[in-house]
């Protein structure tokens, strides 16, 4: 059995996420971050942010929803029972702040087979309400025994 590659290059509809102050705080607490710029509006503004600022890895909260339809697309055909999250890369641009409206698009970059495993690589690009890129994500899922 070999991997299907017809979904390479496919793009899926954008999702939009409005960043909220309490959601940033909830994420920051779980990770153990204590910089007050993640919790206190006045401290964040004094530090030069529009509002309370999200930690970089908060990007999973607003960008992952765009990936759902891609991962479940039958044209991609991933076998979830044998899938693991193999690798992840993020490149950050403009910080995400409370009140931002972030739009994320997803695209299938690559599908290939190596050593009996299927590699499925997706890209997400997230931009804010001003059109500035907030983060670019590269998500690699590995399926054993394809």
């Amino acid at each position, binding site marked *: 059995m070999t991997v299907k590659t017809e979904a390479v290059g496919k793009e899926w509809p954008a999702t939009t996420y409005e960043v909220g102050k309490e*959601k940033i705080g*909830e*994420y920051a*607490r*779980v*990770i*153990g*971050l*204590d*910089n007050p*710029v*993640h919790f206190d509006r006045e401290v964040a503004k004094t530090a030069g942010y529009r509002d309370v*600022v*999200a*930690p*970089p*890895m908060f990007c*999973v*909260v607003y960008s*992952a*929803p765009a990936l759902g339809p891609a991962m479940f697309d039958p044209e991609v055909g991933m076998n979830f*029972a044998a899938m*693991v*999250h*193999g*690798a*992840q*890369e*993020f*490149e*950050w641009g403009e*910080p995400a702040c409370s009140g931002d409206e972030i739009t994320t698009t997803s695209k299938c970059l690559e599908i290939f087979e190596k050593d009996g495993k299927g590699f499925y690589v997706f890209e997400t690009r997230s931009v804010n309400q001003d059109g500035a890129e907030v983060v670019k994500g*590269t998500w690699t899922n590995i399926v054993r025994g394809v």
Partner: protein
Amino acid sequence: MADLNAGDAIPGLSVTPDKYLPHRYAGASGDFNPIHIDPEFAKAVGLPNTILHGLYMMGLVARANAAVAGGDPRALKRLSVQFRGMGAPETEIAVSGTVKSVDGGTIVIDTVAAQGDNQTIRNAEAEVLIG
């Protein structure tokens, strides 16, 4: 921290996620995959027990790298990781790192997250701005 040179170790961090951490991370992140929160489900799909979210451990790696720049959320410009081992709740996670290169205000750090001998994240490369 501007005096870091290639080969230097970063301070790193050590965290022991409690039994319910995966539930709180699921709520915070929106990832409710039952392998992270339901022991019966996890065992039914062949796992020893519930496992930590890989992206939670990547969050700790990001925290350790941003700490090099005083925890400034603007400092971390890029982070690339490979997930290699499963992480377990109620077990200490140690994040350690070594400076790979320094180029003006940008340093590249090689980071590992491990539970004992089990390296859950390897080949993590971070690009951090130091001012």
